[in-house]
């Protein structure tokens, strides 16, 4: 069973307006790489220099990956990866 990725409104122009994407992968980084193959340009919106941008939140099920292994966080079949823009400003 694949992983489900939930795409925020702002990035749906890159995913043919799809809100949910089904994709295979055993780590968050692998899922993003596979999304990049299908939807070129999405990786650059999420990652810089090997880490997720601070203004992007990525969750596996209900868990913020920053509190786990970041982009190396392991995934299980059926997991839901949610991407949200972090609302922050100084």
């Amino acid at each position, binding site marked *: 069973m694949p992983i489900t990725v939930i795409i925020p409104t*702002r990035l749906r122009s890159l995913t043919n307006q799809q809100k949910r994407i089904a994709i295979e992968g055993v780590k968050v980084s692998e899922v993003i790489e596979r999304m990049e193959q299908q939807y070129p340009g999405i990786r650059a919106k999420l990652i810089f220099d090997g880490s997720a941008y601070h203004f992007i939140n990525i969750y596996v099920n209900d868990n913020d990956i920053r509190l786990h292994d970041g982009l190396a966080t392991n995934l299980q079949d059926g997991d839901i990866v949610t991407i949200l823009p972090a609302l922050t400003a100084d």
Partner: protein
Amino acid sequence: MLTIHARLVDAMIAQALNDHPVETCGIIAGPAGSNWPLRLIPMRNAAQSDNFFQFDPQQQLQVWKEMSARCEEPVVIYHSHTSSQAYPRRSDVELATEPQAHYVIIPTQHLYQAEIRSFRIADQMVIEERVRIVRQYQPELELQMVA
């Protein structure tokens, strides 16, 4: 133009003054595509700073999931400025992520009075808009304040 119920404005200002000198933040959700702010949800400022706000990531996920289940979107995204005027700072503009949202800023420094201002921010462009405060909505629209 942002049309908003006076009770929601009062609630935002009360929250901002209560949290001062820490910046307050939150959203007002409404039915997707409606442009009606109805359900006020104060957010925790994870930064607990007087010049910086950051929605608590865990709370944000729960709130966004709930909005999705209710077919809502953030109609208003608000925060306070505790020592500067109610105008978006550079980072407000760079990090604004919801082009359909009204970005409301509440100044809590007495010099600027507690008058809210609203902005649309898209593609790093800021446009101030009129705020029309009303005493009632259409009868079918129900306000809700989330504790």
